[in-house]
């Protein structure tokens, strides 16, 4: 099996049990062994496979990569892309970049918080959605933009939220 950067966003089934997922992550680490400075890339892959990066998993990665846990944890906590909390099935990123902010993204966030009944950074009780904000997703021409998983929704208005969520 070839594991590489391109597979990072794959949609295949990464195995269902924790053991299978850990085994896959282990393989991934071995594949990166000879590359200098690959910790961040390994964490990306691990998050893709496991969904998030709980402390247990960070320990596993640290051990397998022969690095102190403090180093792994330091990196995980530095970058906003890594999450140590379980995430919903889908992640909603409301863009709060300049272009989207100027076009009313703040209202959109409030409307989504209202609609989903959770604050930014939280998961809905049915574990369906995580609500998050992003710093410019590069769709500024379509502001305000919302990214649900990897799909970008353009010019979303508070009134269009229902239609958008229904697709998931």
């Amino acid at each position, binding site marked *: 099996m070839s594991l590489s950067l391109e597979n990072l966003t794959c949609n295949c089934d990464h195995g269902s049990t924790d053991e299978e997922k850990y085994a896959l992550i282990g393989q991934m680490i071995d594949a990166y062994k000879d590359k*200098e400075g690959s910790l*961040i890339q390994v964490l990306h892959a691990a998050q893709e496979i496991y969904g998030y990066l709980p402390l247990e998993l960070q320990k596993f990665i640290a051990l397998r990569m022969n690095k102190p846990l403090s*180093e792994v944890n330091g990196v995980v906590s*530095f970058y906003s892309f890594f999450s140590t909390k379980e995430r919903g099935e889908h992640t909603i990123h409301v863009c709060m970049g300049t*272009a989207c902010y*100027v076009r009313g993204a703040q209202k959109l966030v409030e409307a989504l918080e209202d609609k989903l009944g959770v604050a930014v950074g939280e998961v809905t009780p049915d574990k369906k959605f995580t609500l998050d904000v992003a710093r*410019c997703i*590069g769709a500024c*021409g*379509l502001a305000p933009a919302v990214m649900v998983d990897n799909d970008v929704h353009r010019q979303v208005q508070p009134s269009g939220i229902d239609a958008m969520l229904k697709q998931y």
Partner: protein
Amino acid sequence: MAKINDKYDLSRIKYNYRSEMGRYEHHIYFCAGAGCISCGCADVARGVKESLDELGLNDKVKMIETGCIGLCSLGPVMLVMPERIFYVGLSPKNIGKVIKTHFVDGQIAKNYCYQDLKTKEYIPCIDDIPFYKDQVRIALQGCGTTEFDKIEAYIATGGYATLHKAITEMTPQEVIDEVKNSVLRGRGGGGFPTGVKWQAGHDAVADQKYIVCNADEGDPGAFMDRSIIEGTPHKLIEGIILGGYAIGATKGYVYIRAEYPIAVNRLSKAIDQARAMGLLDEPLFGTDFQFSLEIRIGAGAFVCGEETSLMESIEGHRGEPRQKPPLPFQAGLFGKPTIINNVETFANIPYIIKHGAEGYTRYGRVGAHGTKVFALAGDIVNAGIIEVPIGMPMRNIIENIGGGLIGGKEFKAAQVGGPSGGCITAADIDVPMDYSELIAKGAMMGSGGLIAMSTDTCMVDTARFFMDFVQDESCGKCVACRIGTKRMLEILQRITKGEGKKDDIDRLLELGAVVKDTAMCGLGQTAPNPILSTIRYFRDEYEAHIFDHRCPAGRCQALTVFEIDPQTCIGCTRCKKHCPTLAITGELKHAHVVDPALCIGCGACYSSCPVDAIHPTKREEN
């Protein structure tokens, strides 16, 4: 795939691709840039294919998918060649009709062409559209007009021939001299002359050197680099290899942000193609120069766009800046001499080597030659990606290319240079877009984000927005930035809530000066700029918030209530339906009223009113 060993192989590929394409009478360049993808261009593309099948046009018309053609706000779009007719706002519903009208009836489906909002006229030919007329495309050349996922398509436009010329006919020093003479300045924000940087890289002595492409594009509100990578990934690769050859680096990295999955995907495919053809990881064109290129994906930290943090991040660490000196060209990535350039900088290199420095200096102005790509966004009609000669007056960009402000609103200011930059006001709208002219106005060229703001925008709130951003993104390594940005944010939050104190403006100026002088890296050193610039030009707005408890733009909720002008109100009830707190009362066809005690100043009524009868006013304290 056959390997490329010499220029004859390149010519052969070019000839084959061109004759394959030449079999068709028409080509459809179908925009598959990320903007258009998010407007459902895949369904429309399917519609094009189905229509071509149905109408039996497959021998006559060839559709190719290209990168972003620039006019993102009107997507999905397509360009029909050779007649250069541009169709916008396509959908699965109208695409069949457009295809039939154009290719079967032989007529232009005019109603689906670009419409000038002022004259109401339809403009079918892309060259006549004001958005494109004044542009000069060098870094964006081929973006929107070549197949992004075929190396053959790039070679057919002359791609990699420049690399061949440089490697077989020029010494590294000659390459550097050409770049020096072009006076190309870095497009990532700093504006440092690229040739001078490369000379330093070239002169550094080491067993291993690196060249790094900065594709972190952290400025929120900018998407130029993404468009270049997605539209012409091979041009970037060619530019990086040329840089590697010039400075003597055999290994390169592209550091790209995780928020750009499509760009990552297209670039890694392009790297695979180049490798399969022998352009990477093998001696190039029979010489002994060989180069390898690897992608590193970021993980969401603005500071990683700063070059020393970026190197930390590539090494797999927390992206905290390093103390300079040593400069990267002395001891950079893994302690080796390293040269870092921005995506757009590299994208200019093949053109400069191909056409020589004279070809490039034809554009722009003394001290800053060539062109600059801008991402136009905000309250502007034609939001998208543009490339113009350096020195073009901003008015031309906002009014002609951008088509003015949405809804005919009045221009108040443009934020240039993102969180490190400043604003250019309506009074200065004729400023030439040039490094030094922008600095003189308290803004900066930055990486090219240009956000147009209408009179509905509160400048204090805008400053708060940027401070919120940098405060959140400050890595925390140095005290000035970590604590200074936090204090400045607190003051701004206070002011926008109507709780400002009388010496807050002075305190912001003082704090700003300290952070600017003492922060460790560019993030902190430039963080106060949006505040300093808005105080310079909009001090009255700050004072209105602090002393009158009034937000002139009606944006700061805590300070605003809305009021309906009974003379203008037509009683359509729309505002009543939109009001979240039931603060509006009134009967159909009768003037409505807002109850100031219930109004929370959200502005939902304001944006729903069809006749502009609603205005923000000052909230009276009780």
